[in-house]
């Protein structure tokens, strides 16, 4: 039955039309679902969530560390790097540490890092206090650091 779709001779009289209509429905469904997903991501990307946990390495003791997980195939990681480095440069007591997620897969699994960039905000004592996925803005980083001090 389906094989007829290889030979589109009489649309409307064979299965081609059915397949074509289904195909259009699939296209509409995909576009709607992708729009919802994209809008959700746009709203939540870079949002710093409060988390708890601790890390014994990969932070600068005595400083608030912005620990950024990046990957090679990741343009937003570059934007986030610029933002975090700027904050570290201009704020005393804040360090930025960027690591290639691929090179630390054990840590990535342990911390359940799923996508890049992911930034962990680590208090001077090594407690993980915040976590953000997706590109961060300068304001989002500054707010998160303010929350550590508070």
């Amino acid at each position: 039955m389906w094989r007829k779709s290889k030979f589109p001779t009489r649309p409307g009289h064979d299965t081609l039309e059915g397949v074509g209509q289904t195909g259009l429905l699939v296209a509409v469904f995909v576009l709607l679902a992708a729009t919802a997903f994209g809008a959700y991501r746009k709203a939540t990307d870079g949002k710093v969530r409060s988390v708890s946990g601790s890390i014994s390495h990969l932070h600068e003791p005595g400083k608030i560390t912005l620990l950024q997980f990046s990957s090679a195939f990741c343009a937003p990681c570059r934007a986030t790097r610029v933002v975090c480095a700027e904050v570290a440069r201009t704020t005393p007591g804040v360090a930025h540490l960027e690591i290639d997620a691929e090179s630390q897969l054990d840590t990535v699994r342990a911390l359940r890092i799923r996508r890049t960039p992911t930034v962990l905000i680590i208090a001077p004592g090594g407690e993980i206090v915040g976590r953000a996925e997706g590109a961060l803005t300068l304001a989002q980083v500054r707010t998160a650091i303010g929350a550590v001090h508070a």
Partner: protein
Amino acid sequence: MLDPRGPRFAATITTVVFILVLAFSSAWLALAQAVVFALTAFTRYGPYTLLYRRFVAPRLGPPGELEAPQPVRFAQIVGLIFAILCFLGYLLGAPILGMIAAGFALAAAFLNAAFGFCLGCEVYLLLRRTLNRPPSTDVHQ
């Protein structure tokens, strides 16, 4: 380094192409798109990229920022795999496979075009996490 608007432009055309692939269940259009993905991933002569450079870029100003080429190449290779699956599905009488592959490719292209979605950021690390398990030292037999 790339002008990031180039890949967005290419993704817009790719979105339209996959809507047409789905609407007409067209194996050959999927194959044509596969060739475009391959050219874009492995040469400097991606057809949509050439269109962008020739007709679109001169009308826009210089880019505000530049983008690394690896994320774009990764996305093109993922697109290539889905386009080939789609082509084979329609060609070999498995239109469901064709539709699923075209659906994923459409989702990725549309998200890139409309939201600047970074496919590599989402799936690359997950793949590495899954495929690159460290040699297990605590296997109980």
